[in-house]
């Protein structure tokens, strides 16, 4: 996916900066994957395999991380109001998305869970919000950890701003919050993008 088409009609310069940034992201990201090892992502934790979460456990953990990344507020929608979890589940189920990226999203859960048990002796989802936040700050200090969070944020922002036909941004809650004006005609069930 290129950002170039999004930024300018010429498709070039700010676009350029962003694809370079994206490429850099991607390289960091692959670096994290290359080892596939806990030590690269979260240098302090070990024994991830022993703490691997099941599918449902991973999604519970991601739901908590999303809440920290994009908290609900009375005047502004958070991850919950955006249906960000269901949106991410749709993304991860899309075989058109890079397989390494999908694997990385899920593996990151095991790594974070492992770190939580090591540092606090408890599951990540059992920690209070402050401790969860502190852990995310710690994770963000490693390159691959930051990459994992930035990947989750990327799809959170998609859930905030894509057409409601994809499940996020229900009733255009994200668009209304940011006073964004969509274009018409909007996509419908027949002509929308389909996951592979």
């Amino acid at each position: 996916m290129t950002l170039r088409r999004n930024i300018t009609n010429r498709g070039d310069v700010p676009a350029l900066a962003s694809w370079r940034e994206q490429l850099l992201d991607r390289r960091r990201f692959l670096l994290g994957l290359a080892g596939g090892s806990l030590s690269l992502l979260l240098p302090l934790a070990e024994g991830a395999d022993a703490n691997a979460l099941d599918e449902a456990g991973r999604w519970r953990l991601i739901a908590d991380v999303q809440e920290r990344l994009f908290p609900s507020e009375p005047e502004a929608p958070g991850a919950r109001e955006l249906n960000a979890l269901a949106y991410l589940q749709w993304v991860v189920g899309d075989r058109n998305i890079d397989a390494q990226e999908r694997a990385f999203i899920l593996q990151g859960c095991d790594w974070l869970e492992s770190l939580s048990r090591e540092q606090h002796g408890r599951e990540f989802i059992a920690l209070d919000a402050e401790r969860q936040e502190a852990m995310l700050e710690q994770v963000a200090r490693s390159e691959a950890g930051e990459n994992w969070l930035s990947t989750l944020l990327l799809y959170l922002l998609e859930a905030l701003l894509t057409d409601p036909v994809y499940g996020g941004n229900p009733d255009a809650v994200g668009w209304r919050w940011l006073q964004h004006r969509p274009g018409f005609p909007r996509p419908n069930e027949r002509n929308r993008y389909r996951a592979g």
Partner: protein
Amino acid sequence: MAGDFDICVIGSGAGAGPVIWRLTRAGYSVVVLEKGPWFKREDFSKDELACCRRSHYTPNLRDEQHVLEELAASGGWQATPAGESKRDFWNGNMVGGSSNLMSGYFHRLKPHDFRLLSEFGPIEGANLTDWPISYDDLEPYYSLVERVVGVSGSVTPHPRQEPRSNPDFPYPPTAEHPVSAWIDEACRELCHHPLRVARAILSQREGGRDACSYSGYCGSYGCSTNAKGSARAALIEPALATGRCDLRPDSKVYRLESDAQGRVVQAHYYDAQGEARKVSARIFVVACQAIESSRLLLGSPGPAHPDGLGNHSGQLGRNLIFSAGGAGSGYFTYAKLTPQQQDQVRTLGPFVNRALQDWYVIDDPRFGPHPAKGGTIDFLFAHPNPIPLANGVRWRDGELLWGKPLKRKLERWFTEDRKLLFEVFCDWLPNDDCFVTLDPQVRDKWGSPVARVRLGSHPHDQRVGRYLAERGQEVLRAMGLDWIGASVSGAPPPNLVAGGCRFGTDPQQSVLDPDCRVWGADNLYVSDASFMPTGGSVPYTWTIYANAFRVADIIRQQLI
């Protein structure tokens, strides 16, 4: 020679549409082999995910990609498959090609663009040459495009205005944004000559095509009214109505088979089911976009073309060009404007349609002792897609931002200002480090070697780009905008690509003859942007259309 069809056209974009339109109207049978799917008007919507964030209009890089060679920091060329870097060099792959997704900023080349070497002299390290045809040869076809494809505008007299055979455009200008008048005012203060940019977008209904609906979402999106002059809406749909056009989407041509005389006899392709098929014709026309056209010819050796069709002199794939330049921007801060001005700036839909060509030739001692080729500055609002804007918000000084600080910053970035851009278009000097070859390892899903593209640029391009970006920033400053900046680099915009099969009078120095016929294959033409030996300093589409109409006339002469 008999064949299944009179003409077989490979590709269906701006380089193909005029050939299809002209020859079906002239009574010939045309088969069109298009790799991508057939999206129609009702298949398009303003869907950011489909247009710009998933491979909906382009191949998945897992199936088909490029290998891109860039100069590494350590020196030397480093090749990276796009599947790894995610650097996507595809443009629209569908019936009508990327003309479906263009913004339709239409500029003609100017007479001296056809004579760059003679007018401005050689530049060390640049493969400059004059075109084998002149502006006068192409002028009637530029005019034809205005009428047939549909170009809306009004001629603004300015010092760099190129000659025209008809006094004005056939369609009145598209609706203009209130800010256009502010740009005019600032430019005039600076003694520049702002001009109204013509658009390949219908301002009035014509035939089966509706007028523009001014959705505010144009470039990168397919058109839901058919106002945009895509090859599909303007040329292929009318060609289908003749009953003489056999349009085959999802048909990927992988080889052109030629005989001992060098003539092409059959096109081999895979259909939607992956079945190998073939078609014969009297004339073959290749228009797959610059990189892919070179790739197809390189991948089609024959008894008389041992190194690929038209590659006797080793020129095939060489002198690939892009559009050089860059962009700059400034912000309208709503809090500094009157309520009425705020409403004007917030207007979504009408087009800015302003450009400066005062420096199409730079005659300025600050730049150099002699006049030099310059370029075009085009003004526009930042693309309205919200996700890239939000993605930019998530970083602060290189650190990831989240939680409430992220949300507050989003609120500010989305509501406090609006970004006005200018884009700089200048010549990408053809050079020995910008070319297409076949990758020795990476193959597409059908088993054919993918294109490997070296992306070297000439340092002169950035000098010109920076000079123009300075001029653009002066205008933004005169407008009183905030946060003014610009960026010029040598990185290529993948959607503005040409060359690779340059035309010329010397078979040793070119791939195509002046008629865009492949040297040594007298029934094979290349009608997309590949023919261009130099690219001018404007977007290519109008020139691609015009030249393809010219090639269509030449083919018609050959068939008679």
